[in-house]
């Protein structure tokens, strides 16, 4: 028979563990909120990027150039201008894929449900979260760590945000107009720089089996 005093102690210990854990979580979330704070006022932004794509399917790393555009509340556009023109527009949970026919030069458009492209959804969610300064979205889809680095650009120290995606069950499309794609867990590192870490310098995404992508960003254009 457990004595009342023992029971009370167990309850107190249990509660204190919970409280410590909750406080730790709140403090970590606060770190992320602080890190993303400079982005909260962004209404509309376009950022040029250069991407290096590493894959076992490629002889050498493939290089892409283009822009990423975000418009509040939920429009996300990734435009690739090199080596081939492609555009991915996300709006209202739909993904519009535009590509240019190399021979005729005409544009082809395909609209699919974003849920059938979990990798892209994850990527756009990441950007929406970052550019809205929305820590809740980031922590919903990723586990994260914030690591200050010793490297610095100018007078400001850099910060690294390390994310591990929570996508575990992914789906493949089978409808007539859908394309097939799927995803799996990814490791993402985001390098913040500038005053108050207000500039995203680099995003590196690593998948399984040597799949990797490194995006370097130049100065953004604030559209509004």
């Amino acid at each position, binding site marked *: 028979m457990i004595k009342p005093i023992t029971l009370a102690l167990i309850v107190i210990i249990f509660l204190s563990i919970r409280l410590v854990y909750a406080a730790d979580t709140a403090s970590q979330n606060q770190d992320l909120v602080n890190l993303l704070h400079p982005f909260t006022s962004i209404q509309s932004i376009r950022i040029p990027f250069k991407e290096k794509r590493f*894959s076992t399917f490629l002889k050498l790393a493939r290089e892409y150039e283009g822009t990423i555009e975000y418009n509040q509340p939920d429009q996300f556009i990734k435009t690739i201008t090199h080596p081939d023109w492609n555009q991915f527009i996300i709006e209202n949970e739909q993904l519009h894929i535009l*590509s240019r026919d190399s021979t005729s030069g005409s544009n082809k458009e395909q609209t699919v449900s974003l849920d059938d492209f979990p990798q892209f959804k994850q990527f756009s969610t990441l950007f929406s979260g970052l550019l809205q300064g929305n820590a809740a979205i980031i922590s919903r889809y990723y586990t994260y760590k914030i690591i200050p680095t010793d490297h610095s650009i100018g007078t400001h120290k850099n910060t690294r945000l390390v994310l591990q995606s929570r996508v575990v069950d992914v789906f493949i499309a089978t*409808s007539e107009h859908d394309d097939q794609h799927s995803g799996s867990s990814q490791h993402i590192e985001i390098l913040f720089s500038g005053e108050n870490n207000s500039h995203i310098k680099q995003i590196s995404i690593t998948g399984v089996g040597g799949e990797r992508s490194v995006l370097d960003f130049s100065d953004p254009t604030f559209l509004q």
Partner: protein
Amino acid sequence: MNSSSMIRKRLIFLLWFVFCLGMILFLFQSFQLRSDLSFFLPQKTDAIDQVMRHQLTQGEAGKIILIALRLKNKQNNQAAPTRLLADLNKKLTAVLKIQKEFTQVHNGQSSLSELLIEPYFTYRYLLNDKPESFSQKNLKHSFLQLLQRIQFIMSATEQRLMSEDPQMIWLTLLKRWQHQTLQKHHGVWFDHNAEQALLFVKTRANAYDLIQQKKNIALIENNLSELIQSSKSLGDYTIEPLLSGAPVFALSSKKSISLQIKLISVLASITLMAFLFWFFRSIITVFLISLPLSLAVLSGISSVILVDGFIHGITMAFGITIIGVAVDYPIHYFSHARYMPRQLAAHSIWPMLRLGLITTIIGFSAILLSDFSGLRQLGIFAISGLITAAFCTRTLLPLLSINPGKHTANSGAYNKLLFLVKLPIHPAIKKIMMLLPLLAIIAISLNYQHLWQKDLAALSPIPEKLKQQDFNLRKAMGLPELRYTLLITADTIEELLQQSEQLKPELKHLVKKKMISAYDMAAHYLPSRQQQSNIQQTLPDEKQLEKLLLDTLQETELNAQAFTPFIQALKNSRQLIPLTREQLLNSNKDNFINDKIRTLLFKNDNGLWTALIPLQGVTTETIADIDMSPAQLLDLKAQTESLLSHYRNEAIAWFLAGLVLILLVLFFHHRQLHSVWTLAAPFSAAITITIATLLMAGFSLSIFHLVTLLLVVGLGIDYSIFSFKSCTKSENALQFHEISQVSVIICAISTLIMFASLSLSDLPVLKAIGLTASLGAFFAFLYTFIFSRSNVLNEPILSHPDESNHTLNN
């Protein structure tokens, strides 16, 4: 009471007790109720009928339950955001997928774990009938697309797919096999207005295994309500699930029919008991009147199970209807027992009751020879039931009923009915009544084209709107439509598959001409061994492919080394032994491809292999005129109608044979054509006028009307015999005749109370039975009532002169 009569009484009790106990024990051990419709299909069948039977019982379309989820805001009735609905849909799909009762659960999502379906994935190159896939041009196009895909970081499964199947042949095959046009939100199917999230399950049980289907539907509903209870995100929304599909319709029909029957039965029984109590003034008598019918039902069920090992639900329902005449037997007995000793009453009415019984059971015996098992069961049920009811009335009731002198005779009630019996009838009424059947025949012949109900759907209690909704959802989900199917039979699977493949050009031509929108066949998923071998021959060998790959990838950024698994997969494909049905189905794995093959390719009862090729989106009925030999076109609607008409014609033939037998029995009994005419004319007139009245009221006759007309025959014979025959030439003959006529009035009113209330139902089947029985009973009574005044058949019925001289109590 002397000792011998006491012993006799005890012996009768004992016999009935043993009989009842025997039946109860037998039923307790052997009762088996079946509800599959195939039992009501003819036994001697051709290939098409067998496929019909297969489609109706095991057909793919019949096993599908569609689930539509709609959320409504409790406050403003607004539809919920698609995200909420999609989440609920995904959760429900996940919980239903682990239930063994369902072979498929699909909501538009395919998880990666379900993607690589073996052995089909390994055999993909032998299943793909597009040899041009390996041309340099096509290969280059495939790799350019692959380069575009590399934009995204790939998962492990995708990397495997890319390296083993860079042309995406497997995904193209899957896409082709799972054709559907529904829109998706958040990865799951939604209806056109994005208000309902959709999914479907395919049950392991056959469509008309209603007991199992009831459990399946309850399983879905329980899982859904558990999800709703555990889902905190629903907040202000209420869930509105809609289940559709053949099993749901079958159960909802059963439920609505049972509900209405219960309601009507309770109302009618109370009214009937009140009426009987008004006349007999004895609660015991009122309850005893129900005894012969109850024993008749028990005996009917036992006999059918004894012969066939089971009873069909429809046999039971119709059987109870057509032995409704059994209620008349105790009414006749108790009517007479109020005015004479019990044994004498039973003895006095027995010859009439016996004659009615013999004629009715001989009439029903004709259907015992029917080719339709359902009709045969009905005959066994009716014959056994009626014999039991008659013998119960003759032997058991006189022992159970209290002495007539002990209860208060309601002379008032008797006198009121007697007043009706003695009511003078104007000769003109008789002339009009004689003219009525002729007018009825004219009306029937003028409306002959509407005489028979050809459309089964008209008898269905399912609202048209729901049926249309089900049809549209099926179409959008790419689920099979039932109406048009091509049918091929052969001795071997290989022959069947080859014949199916030969039909492909013609079918593609029909699609091109937009006469059909699509077609399905087992050969899509399982080509003939010959075709698989032919395809195998066209596959490039290892060296050819290596060269082809190097040439194609030379000027691209793609690394040829990464596609070594592709070369290996093709090398393996060239060595594979062609896939067979046995190899696929022996694994007993539940996946949609195995399921399709099982449905589209099966062995029929004659041992022949049968392939079905369902045609979808048929735009013209001229499809029936196109020669698709060796395939036969099965138009399920036309076939069902033809089957129904065959059933009906056979039923009519056996009913007519039964009527002829009844007339012969009456003739042998009376040896006078006049007597036969007197007894047969009322029910013949009643049947004719009932049919004409139904036609004039806009009803066409179905099998339900026909079966109920059997009851009318039974009632008509009963009314005639009791109205036209007098007991004896003695001085009490007139009084006995009056009692008989009064008892016929009670019988007729009782029947009208029971069946007229049924005709108020809004369910077509119940209405058909109710209207036919009440109209038929009314007309049969009217004719016997009016024409029995001047046509009493004066002949002795009581066999013992002593007994004939008993004084009637009243």
